[in-house]
């Protein structure tokens, strides 16, 4: 950690001086140590570091940070409250726009949003907005008494939320604050969506999600796990038989995509979803304390195919489970990798190897169905494709083989189909995502709203939360008016 000059506690420093202050680093577990455990990498700011970092903010007249945040967190305001030492006030300020700050502070791709917009980034390093948000949320968690949260007067209206990922949780939190009776249905045995089954402990401790869920329970939200809507109960039944006045669908894009190459059925080839679900939801990294097993690949080669957050989460988990050599196979170059920059940096420090411009063509086995190697091909970058990123083009004759014990496919996901196939009249697009109005989140079915990955395809936590928030507003309007559709 670098030693930096300490600013005064109230922001009296002239702007020019503020620009000279370096960004405060967050303490983290040393790379070699953390590569062997599942405890969180980032350790958080102390109160003093937080105030020092906050003091760097230039208090812009037209803050780009807020404009570039998908939910418009009032960064300037909450940061000034930190400078003044009013951490609970800062938390309340963030909560006006963002109900899950402990999570977004940790997982938002800040470089694409708030910090990407921050004016200071033009000259020096941007303000550590994510770190500050996280600090404030953690502080609030330690000091908040959830035993008697203020409750809005009941409206007598019932809303069902399908899926407990960030979109569903946000909608639930906003609706219960408006006095509606909110019931969340979740297919898995633990609420939280990708936050629980996908993103690993070392990046987002499960305790944080449990605390957020407890907070919502204290506000009055009821969670019912083990309900696969469409199978256990349908949307029609919820509305007609169980008396729900409105339904929000936030079922996510949880279906794994495979590559369709030979050998994907071999033992040792996983989808990222299965690999991460075993580890996170089922705690396979704590086998045999937990019953869920994982194949033993200690000391062996593990490759993850893909370059997003999912790929990095999988490969870093593999490293923590004792992989001898852990590497990413990505068909474009590092510049095109969609993962958060901080994760790429962290992964490199931990010793993850990046084999970019390469893709597997086929998996090979030992003759008994156990993976032994992948046959890969090198790529070059061609013209930009529809996503604006340069398209990978295979190089003829560049095939090579790498020995592998485990391969994890993390090339993307698609829409969870169960609700769509069991809800007549619910319009979907060609790829089976639910069609919803981008401002009201209304679907083609009266009283039914949708948002998050099930509408947009896999995106980010904060975009899903934004959709949940718009839906809650729109559901509230629908329930408070004549209910025209």
């Amino acid at each position, binding site marked *: 950690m670098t030693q930096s000059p300490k600013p005064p506690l109230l922001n009296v420093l002239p702007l020019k001086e503020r620009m000279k202050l370096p960004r405060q680093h967050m303490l983290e577990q040393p790379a070699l140590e953390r590569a062997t455990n599942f405890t969180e990498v980032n350790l958080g700011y102390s109160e003093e570091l937080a105030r020092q970092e906050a003091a760097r903010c230039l208090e812009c007249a037209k803050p780009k940070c807020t404009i570039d945040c998908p939910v418009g967190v009032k960064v300037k305001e909450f940061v000034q409250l930190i400078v003044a030492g009013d951490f609970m006030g800062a938390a309340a300020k963030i909560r006006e726009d963002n109900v899950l700050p402990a999570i977004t502070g940790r997982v938002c791709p800040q470089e694409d949003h708030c910090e990407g917009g921050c004016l200071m980034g033009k000259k020096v390093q941007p303000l550590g907005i994510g770190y500050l948000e996280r600090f404030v949320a953690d502080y609030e968690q330690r000091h908040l008494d959830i035993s008697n949260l203020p409750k809005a007067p009941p409206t007598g209206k019932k809303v069902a939320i399908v899926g407990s990922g960030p979109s569903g949780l946000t909608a639930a939190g906003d609706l219960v604050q408006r006095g509606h009776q909110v019931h969340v249905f979740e*297919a*898995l*045995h633990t609420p939280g969506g990708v936050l629980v089954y996908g993103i690993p402990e070392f990046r987002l401790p499960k305790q944080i999600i449990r605390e957020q869920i407890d907070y919502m*329970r204290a506000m009055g939200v*009821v*969670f*019912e*796990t*083990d*309900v*696969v809507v469409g*199978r*256990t*109960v349908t949307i029609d039944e919820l509305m007609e038989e169980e008396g729900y006045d409105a339904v929000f669908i936030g079922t996510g894009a*949880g*279906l*794994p995509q*495979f590559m369709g190459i030979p050998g*994907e*059925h*071999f*033992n040792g080839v*996983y*989808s990222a*979803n*299965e690999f991460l*679900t*075993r580890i996170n939801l*089922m*705690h396979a990294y704590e*086998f*045999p*304390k*937990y*019953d*869920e*097993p*994982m*194949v*033993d690949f200690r000391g062996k080669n593990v490759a993850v195919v893909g370059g997003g957050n999912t790929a990095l989460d999988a490969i870093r988990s593999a490293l923590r489970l004792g992989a001898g050599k852990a590497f990413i196979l990505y068909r474009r170059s590092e510049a095109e990798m969609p993962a958060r920059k901080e994760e790429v940096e962290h992964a490199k420090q931990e010793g993850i190897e990046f084999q970019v411009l390469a893709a597997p063509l086929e998996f090979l086995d030992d003759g*008994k*169905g156990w993976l032994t190697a992948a046959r890969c091909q090198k790529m070059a970058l061609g013209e930009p494709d529809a996503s604006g990123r340069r398209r990978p083009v295979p190089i003829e004759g560049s095939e090579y083989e790498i020995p592998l014990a485990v391969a994890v496919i993390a090339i993307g996901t698609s829409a*969870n*189909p*169960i609700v769509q196939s069991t809800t007549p009249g619910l319009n979907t697009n060609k790829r089976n995502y639910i069609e919803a109005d981008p401002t009201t989140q209304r679907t083609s079915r009266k009283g039914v709203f949708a948002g998050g990955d099930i509408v947009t395809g896999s995106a980010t936590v904060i975009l899903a939360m934004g959709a949940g928030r718009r839906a809650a507003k729109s559901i509230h309007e629908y329930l408070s008016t004549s209910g025209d559709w």
Partner: protein
Amino acid sequence: MFKILHAEFLAPGIKRFEIEAPRIAHKQKPGQFVILRLYEQGERIPITIEHSDPERGTIRIVVQSAGKTTTLLNSLNTGDSILNVVGPLGKPSDIEKFGTVVVMGGGVGTAMAYPTAAALKHAGNRVITIVGARNKELVILERELRECSDALMITTDDGSYADKGFVTDKLRQLIENGTRIDLVLAIGPIPMMRAVAEMTRKEHIRTVVSLNPIMIDGTGMCGGCRVLVDGKSEFACVDGPEFDAHRVDFSVLVQRNSMYRTAEQKSMEAFQQDPESQVEAIHAEQTGACALKGIDR
């Protein structure tokens, strides 16, 4: 939490449970299953719904002790609870009037085949049921199956009850006698389903098997349950569990089911050293802090 209203052994190592699960009881169709988890550190395992009673809000399952989770489950009794039960999952069996249907159950597969056999009978089919067990003690659901079958044949591997031999011997007899068979449904150990598939393939008899790969979520999310059907990956939890037997690659199923054998054995050995303490841990969890699990309120 899901309360066990009744539990009884049907045979050594095979137990039937009646569980309070009103939502599932309302929706279950023959051929569907639940996924359950016994306690916080437990794994999720799929078990077929043998019967459901929407009025009472209960479902029944029949479980054979195979490894740690099923053995632990079979140590639970009336009045205990199961932490998580989710369902009904999977595509229901195809029930229509086919003509003559041969329903074959091997071991605990008999209980899995029973609801479909009953529904096929109800749909007007002539149902010939063949059940096989290792010995007399392990023959289960004989009375129930007799009620829904036009003919019931029983085989035991050791001849200790009914006819000595395998279920495939009976199927061969039927074919050799020139019995017209429109559909065969076979549920049991993989070698049995595979043998049935080979036999009926030659005779061009449509055959359905219910596959039992390793599952986690049961909703199509993990892809762990993928089976090779006609050379393509299908997810048994959403595309199945029933598949056309003649298109299934049984070797891949056997191979994938062996993936965690070492770990499973380790689990089982550790469990067997002190099974009581595990059951006690479940009891403690159920009476203690976890009263909030499942539905709140």
